[in-house]
């Protein structure tokens, strides 16, 4: 009789759901992250028997599924980034001269800039950059999750970060690998 798959997936959930949720929340907001996490683990349930631990770790595999599902929410992510760039803008200090408030304003302004630039970045570069920033995956695990050569991940990450740091970013919206 075929093994009931819920138990290994339950263990995966306990180990990986929280970091996965944090990552997806940062990309599309908590509301949609709930659904994406559920969808990721439901796919994991269905594909459980095809997962080969020898080919990599479960965390990278799950982040790969999640990132693939996230691509179906591409427009939603762009909307979320746009909302971030707009809503962060309306925060103002409660008392002028308060250094912490100024710091927060600076951080918000910087976050708005990043949110705006991320919208113009190719989906693959955005995946690499944000997996690196918002998950604890190593570059090797990111390569595994995205099914890309590690050297490609390294070079694209470097290029994407340089573009975001730049005063005049050259952000490509083309899809290539």
């Amino acid at each position, binding site marked *: 009789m075929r093994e009931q798959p*819920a138990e290994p*997936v*339950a263990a995966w*959930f*306990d180990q990986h*759901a*929280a970091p996965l*949720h*944090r990552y997806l*929340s*940062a990309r*599309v*907001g*908590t*509301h*949609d*992250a*709930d*659904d994406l*996490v*559920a*969808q990721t683990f*439901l796919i994991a349930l*269905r594909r459980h028997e095809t997962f080969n631990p020898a080919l990599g770790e479960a965390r990278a595999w799950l982040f790969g599924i999640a990132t693939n599902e996230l691509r179906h929410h591409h*427009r939603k992510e762009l*909307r*979320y980034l746009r909302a*971030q*760039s*707009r*809503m962060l*803008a*309306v*925060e*103002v*200090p*409660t008392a*002028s001269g308060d250094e912490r408030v*100024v710091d927060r*304003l600076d*951080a918000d*302004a*910087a*976050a*708005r*800039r*990043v*949110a705006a630039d991320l919208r*113009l970045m190719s989906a693959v570069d955005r995946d690499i950059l*944000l997996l690196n*920033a*918002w998950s604890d995956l190593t570059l090797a695990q990111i390569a595994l999750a995205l099914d890309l050569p590690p050297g490609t991940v390294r070079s694209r990450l470097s290029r994407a*970060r340089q573009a*975001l*740091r*730049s*005063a005049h970013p050259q952000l490509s*919206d*083309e*899809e290539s690998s």
Partner: protein
Amino acid sequence: MISVPRAEWTDEDLDLALARLGAGPEPDLSRLRADLLSGARSNQPAEVQPGRQVSRRRFLRRTGLAAGVAAAAAAALILPTVQWSDSTQPAATVNAAVAQLLNRAADHIKSTDLHVPAGKFLYIREDAWWGAIEQDKYFYVQKNVLETWVPADWHDEWLQKRRFTGDIKWIYGTPADVPVGQLTTLPGPAVMHGACGMWSSDSLNMCSAPGYWSGPTLPWLAAVPTTAGGVYDSLYDESNHEGKSDGTYPSMLLNAASGLKSGLLPSNVRANLYRAMASIPGIKITDTAMDLDGRSGVGFTMTDPRGAGSYQIVIDVNTGTFLGERSLMTQQDGRTPAGTETGRTSVYFSIADKSGHSPAGG
């Protein structure tokens, strides 16, 4: 909207900005886990689970929403209670004056709706003042004109032109304080065109993409709720990004305004949207005769609950026409006094015979 001046960043700057952007509360996954595993153990199909969870959250949010508004009603002139039979939300208390004026706007829309004949174009002109700030160094707002020609058949070529007018209002600072080129460089192409509104490969395909309130595509319009209650739920769900309501209600007005500003919502959708907007918690009337670049309308306002700025839209309630929007500072911010207008857009709609040609009076 306020933009951020470009400056070269260090890796540390970038990491801090990414950390700020990605910051969020720790998730509570217990319910999700229970749902998931109970479904798995009974071998239920996977696809039903996420939807079930959304419904439950929606109910809880609505309960919180009603409680919050009821508390506000005790201290303000907020009166009647409405229950949309089709909405999932419990009875919501609404501001009677807001509801009266928005309902009047909804009632008048059909007689003033623009119909685009075959071969002609919906023409939308936005006179937009956008702000740019570097804290305590400079702050100015700059006037832009955006013109869009939407073909009667959306599958045909769309066109958008953008330009600066040269008009600048300084809140503080001088041109010498601004990076070279910033005052004259458009943040994108001056002319964009493409079938189905596809300005670039990353643009929203207005003929086939799923769409949303601020991007009303053909498939989205075909499926948009046909009642005020359904519209409210749809607007709420689109605006709720963080699973909490404090930023959701201002976002609802922003998203509603984006749809209205697009000029692409047909009269029945706009009518339901106006009726739904009356129930956004916190929406208020700023002025019943607000002047927006020479046109007068009723100003509806949402103030950010975190004590920040406010956002206003202006509607001619006697025709149901959306006239524009404004952003204001509600408090002193360094050198920027309370009440400073940080953004403004006046919108004009008409019919154009040819793409690229501005209609008379447009």
